[in-house]
C-alpha cells in the first residue's frame, strides 16, 4: 500500500490540490461536489484583468476617455473622498442610495408581508389580490418610472415609492409562499394542543414562513439596489447612480468607473450581509 501524502493547507485553500472531502473519491468528473474552489485560477483571472488594464492604459491601446488608468482612478478616488462630487461627499452619495433602498424595502415589507400572509390564509384575500399581483409581477419596476415621474415628479418620495412597488410584490409573493410551505402536520399539532386560530398564525405559521420571507427580503434588496441605481440614472441629483450619470456628461470616465465598482461592491455586501443575518436569525431554516 502506498501512503498518500496530504497536500499543504495552502494548496487545498488555493484549490489546486484535493481537499479532505474530495481526496477519497475516484469518480470526479460528473460529481459536482468533487469540483473544488479553484481559487488559484481565480487569482490568475483577477491578476490577468488588472494586467490587461495596466497594459491597455499605459501602452495607450485605449484612450483615457474610454477607460482610465490606475493612477487616474487613484487620484480621482482621493478627490472624491476629500472633496466629494459636486459638493456632495462620496459617502453622502452612497448613503442616500442605500437609504432609498432600505426605505423602499421597509415599506414594501410592512405592506407586502401582511398582504401575502392574508393571501395564503384566506380565499377572499387571495381572490381579491391575485389578479393584481399576477398582472403587476412581470412588469419590471423600471417600466414604471415614466408614470411615477408624471405623478410625483422627481423628488425623494417618487423614488422611494418606486422602490416600495418593486419590493411590495416580491414580499407579497414570498410571504404567500411561506404560508403554503407550512406542513399541515404542524398546524394540526398546534390545534390539537389547544391553540386558537390567532395563536396558530402567530406561533406556527409566522415562524414557519420566516425563511421564505427572509429570502424575499434578500431578493427585494437586490432588486431595489438595481432599481435605485437605474432610477438615479434617469432622474436625480444625488446618489451613486446620478453621480456616474453626471460624471459621464463631464467625460469624467474615472468617476464613472469608480461609481460602477462601488455599485458592485455594495450590491455584493448587501447579499453577504443578508446571508449572515439569515444564518443568525433563522438557524432552523430547512431543518423541519
Amino acid at each position, binding site marked *: 500500500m502506498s501512503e498518500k501524502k496530504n497536500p499543504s493547507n495552502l494548496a487545498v485553500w488555493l484549490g489546486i490540490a484535493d481537499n479532505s472531502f474530495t481526496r477519497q473519491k475516484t469518480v470526479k468528473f460528473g460529481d459536482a461536489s468533487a469540483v473544488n474552489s479553484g481559487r488559484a485560477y481565480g487569482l490568475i483571472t483577477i491578476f490577468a484583468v488588472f494586467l490587461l488594464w495596466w497594459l491597455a492604459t499605459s501602452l495607450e491601446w485605449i484612450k483615457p476617455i474610454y477607460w482610465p488608468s490606475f493612477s487616474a482612478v487613484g487620484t480621482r478616488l482621493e478627490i472624491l473622498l476629500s472633496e466629494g462630487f459636486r459638493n456632495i461627499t462620496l459617502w453622502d452619495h452612497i448613503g442616500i442610495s442605500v437609504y432609498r433602498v432600505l426605505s423602499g424595502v421597509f415599506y414594501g415589507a410592512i405592506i407586502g408581508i401582511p398582504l401575502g400572509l392574508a393571501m395564503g390564509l384566506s380565499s377572499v384575500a387571495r381572490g381579491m389580490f391575485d389578479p393584481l399581483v399576477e398582472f403587476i409581477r412581470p412588469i419590471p419596476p423600471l417600466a414604471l418610472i415614466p408614470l411615477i415621474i408624471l405623478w410625483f415628479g422627481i423628488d425623494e418620495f417618487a423614488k422611494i415609492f418606486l422602490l416600495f412597488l418593486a419590493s411590495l410584490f416580491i414580499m407579497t409573493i414570498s410571504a404567500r409562499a411561506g404560508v403554503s410551505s407550512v*406542513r*399541515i*402536520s*404542524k398546524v*394540526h*399539532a*398546534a*390545534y*390539537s*394542543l*389547544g*391553540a*386558537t386560530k390567532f*395563536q396558530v398564525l402567530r*406561533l*406556527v405559521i409566522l*415562524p*414557519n414562513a*420566516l425563511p421564505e420571507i427572509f429570502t424575499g427580503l434578500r431578493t427585494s434588496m437586490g432588486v431595489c439596489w438595481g432599481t435605485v441605481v437605474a432610477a438615479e440614472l434617469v432622474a436625480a441629483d444625488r446618489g451613486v447612480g446620478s453621480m456616474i450619470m453626471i460624471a459621464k456628461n463631464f467625460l469624467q470616465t474615472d468617476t464613472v468607473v469608480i461609481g460602477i465598482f462601488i455599485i458592485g461592491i455594495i450590491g455584493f455586501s448587501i447579499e453577504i450581509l443578508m446571508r449572515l443575518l439569515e444564518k443568525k436569525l*433563522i*438557524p*432552523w431554516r430547512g*431543518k*423541519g
Partner: protein
Amino acid sequence: MKSLHIKDVTMTFNVPGGEDVHALEHVSLDLKPGELVSVLGPSGCGKSTLLNIIAGFLSPTAGEVTLEDERITGPSSERAVVVNGPSAERGMVFQQGALFEWMTVEKNIAFGPKMAGKPKAEIAATVERLLSVVGLEDFAKKSVYELSGGMQQRVALARCLANDPEVILMDEPLGALDALTREKMQGLVLKLWKETGKTIILITHSVEEALLLGERLIVMAPRPGRIEKEFHLPFAELGLEKTPREVKGMPEFVENRDKILTMIWEMEEDIMGYKEPAA
C-alpha cells in the same frame, strides 16, 4: 377517563377528474378508557384517515366518532396527536414531523399548557416532570433540530402528554427511526402507557410493533378500507415487566407474528391481485 366510540364511519374522497377513493367503509370500534390499541395494515388502507377523523381534522362522509357522549367535530386538546409517518400533501409525500423546529425542547413541551393559559410555575413544573419521564433533562434548552430522530420523538411524546389528554393518537410515531432506537422507544411507549394509564391508538406498519404495543390489535384491509380482524394479545401487558427484546423472543410472540404475517401476505395477494412468483 372517557371512552371512545367509532360508529359506522365511512370516508369517501372525491378526487376531481378521478375515481372516488373509498378510504374507509363502515368502520366501527369501541375503546374503553386506558386501552392500548394498535392498528396494522398495508399502506393506503385508511389508517391515517381513521386517525385524522378521530383527531377531528377530517369529518367523515357518514357515521360519527364520539368521546364519551360528545361528538367529535374538530381538534381539541383532549385528543393529542403524535405523527411521524409519511403523509401525502398536495400530491407530494412528506415525512410529517410535527415538532416546532423554531422552538427549544422546553418550549415545544410547554406549548400545550401555555395555550391552556396555565400559570407559569405550573407550566415549568409540568415541563420538568415530562423531561424526566422521557429522559431529556439535559436537553431542555436545545433546539429540536439539534437532536437525533429518536430524541425528537421523545420530545413529541412528552409534548403530547403535557395537556393531560383523554386519548393519544399516534400515526407511525416510530416509523422513521432505525431498528435499535425504535426498540428503545417501544419500551418508552409502554412505560408511558403504564405510568399515565392513557387510552392510546397506535398506527404502525410493523407487525412486531403492532403485537408489542397493542392489548388489542386491529388489522385493516384496503379497498375499501375496513377492519379485517381483531386480536387480543398479552404482550403489551408482559412488556410492562420485561424489555421489548425479551418479549419479542418469547415463542408465543414469534408464533403470533408469523400467523399475522401470513395473514397479511395472503391479504395482499387477494386484494392487490398479484401473486409472488413461485420460488
